[in-house]
């Protein structure tokens, strides 16, 4: 699972007023691949996406903690010029939002604000990116008519052209096909597949089939927590954790009922493994143990070792900056000290 990281999220938490939308997310987004963020509605998918170009701070009462490194630079550093950052990130929103101007001006807008004034250059770039997003043939005769008169599918492709025209490195898609008819959606998906060689693409989607079709990499969020992430094939075919499995099978996601809780903060491997095994020994088959450990422990050998003992790991989560939790279901593992 080696890849070149483009965006690296470290302990990112986002609050809207009192409500915590994201809880200590740490994740790496691979370069020049399609990463899909999946999860039920309201689980923080869009929030995570919009924290990549700092649009999240425009929301009322939004508070962000943690780091997002793009090309190794923390974008929440006050020295970062937010307009430069956003120029790097093209955004496709849920409903295409064209600007109140002509088709031509919609694409040229981004170029103009970033200082390109030469008419011939503008013409050329506008044509190039309208072709790139497969819209040129439909609009070449009416470039100067109003963009809002286009069909919604055409508008989304116009938004794509507009985003690409400022030469971003990343394309962020917030359910970009959810408002479109199937044909336009297909067209956008096709474009994205072709563009992934040149751009890092992050896609929020609630359509699992779309994630299967497009994604190289999957991030599964649930109620603001990162549940599982990894290469698409692994996550979609053999999800490691219970919640991911329930979601992928279209089942109701429920919190596992904890039968016993074990606090192993500050205990290191393999002592914590032994303690966990003893605790599991007291449980009946099928009962569930929650082990609270330092996050580095949860993220490394311990879950694997428990799984090796024959038990079932239901979930590994990050509780806060330092602590993690491992939720284990007792299976047939015999135990040996």
């Amino acid at each position: 699972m080696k890849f070149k990281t483009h965006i690296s999220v470290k302990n990112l938490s986002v609050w809207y007023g009192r409500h915590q939308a994201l809880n200590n997310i740490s994740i790496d987004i691979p370069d020049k691949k399609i990463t899909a963020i999946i999860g039920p509605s309201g689980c923080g998918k869009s929030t995570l996406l919009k924290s990549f170009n700092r649009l999240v701070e425009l929301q009322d009462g939004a508070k962000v903690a943690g780091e997002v490194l793009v090309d190794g630079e923390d974008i929440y550093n006050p020295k970062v010029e937010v307009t430069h950052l956003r120029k790097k990130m093209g955004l496709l929103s849920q409903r295409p939002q064209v600007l109140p101007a002509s088709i031509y001006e919609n694409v040229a807008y981004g170029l103009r604000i970033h200082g390109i004034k030469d008419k011939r250059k503008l013409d050329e770039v506008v044509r190039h990116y309208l072709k790139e997003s497969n819209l040129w043939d439909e609009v070449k005769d009416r470039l100067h008519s109003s963009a809002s008169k286009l069909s919604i599918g055409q508008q989304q492709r116009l938004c794509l052209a507009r985003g690409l025209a400022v030469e971003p490195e990343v394309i962020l898609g917030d359910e970009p096909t959810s408002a479109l008819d199937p044909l336009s959606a297909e067209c956008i998906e096709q474009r994205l597949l072709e563009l992934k060689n040149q751009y890092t693409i992050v896609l929020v989607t609630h359509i699992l089939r779309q994630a299967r079709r497009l994604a190289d990499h999957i991030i599964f969020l649930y109620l603001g927590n990162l549940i599982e992430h990894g290469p698409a094939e692994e996550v979609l075919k053999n999800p490691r954790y219970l919640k991911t499995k329930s979601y992928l099978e279209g089942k109701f996601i429920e919190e596992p009922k904890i039968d016993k809780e074990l606090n192993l903060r500050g205990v290191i491997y393999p002592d914590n493994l032994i303690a966990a095994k003893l605790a599991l020994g007291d449980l009946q088959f099928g009962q569930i143990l929650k082990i609270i450990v330092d996050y580095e422990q949860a993220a490394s050998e311990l879950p694997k070792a428990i799984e090796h003992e024959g038990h079932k790991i239901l979930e590994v989560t990050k509780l806060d900056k330092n602590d993690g939790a491992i939720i284990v279901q007792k299976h047939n593992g015999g135990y040996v000290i």
Partner: protein
Amino acid sequence: MDKRRIEENVFKGLMVFSTFIVASSLVLILITIFIKGFPALNLDMIIKTPKGGYYLGKEGGVLNAILGSLILGTAATFLALLVSLPLVFYLNLYLKKNSRLALSVRFILDVLWGIPSIVYGAFGFTLMVFFGLRASLLAGIITVALLIIPIMARSIDEVLKMIPFELKEASYALGATKLETSIKVIFRQALPGILTAILIAFGRGIGDAASVLFTASFTDSLPYSLFKPVATLPLSIFFQLGTPFPEVQQRGYASALILTVIILFISILSRILSGKFTKHTIK
């Protein structure tokens, strides 16, 4: 079942009645002004200044007041716009939606909207005294501008509030600054609404008598200097109707007719103009 039908009919009847009252009073006002004013209206009214003093004058016209009102109204609207536009863009793009400052500014504007114009007149007069100004076109412009700023600002504010957040987001996402977003995106989208707001404010400003009573005063001559008193239509109506002479009173109705026509013309113009600027706006 029957009870619900009666209920429906009673309330529908009430609604029709209210609509009728509003519409008919408007028509009645127009008819009254027209019947009383039209006979006295002649070319002289529009192209001549008053002869024999505005209290008793039965000759000449109200050109001084027409020009005065137009100049004063336009200048005050322009001045108010210069203040309102930055204020409103600051409220809507730079401040968060529920920030305390934004809420209090809106509250203050609402209060200012409700203050009667005579109070603005008195305030304008105090300002004049403070700055050593005499009753003049300039003082009138400033006072009327103060009067219409809350109206204009709150109307434009409501227009900007209606603009979808996603539109701002789309512009920011391309790397635009707030200023660029304001001028190149939001202003364009809001232009028809802004025009309407401007013209509502203009209509209010040009029709107000109390605020100019002390500040712009009155004169028989055409407006020629910022620092000299200026005549306005509402005041000339006020003075003409206040005389004991039926002929002069009739001239007052004619002046009212002229003022009404100006405002009507502006309303129609605003409809046409805002239609013109909706070409690119997003529905």
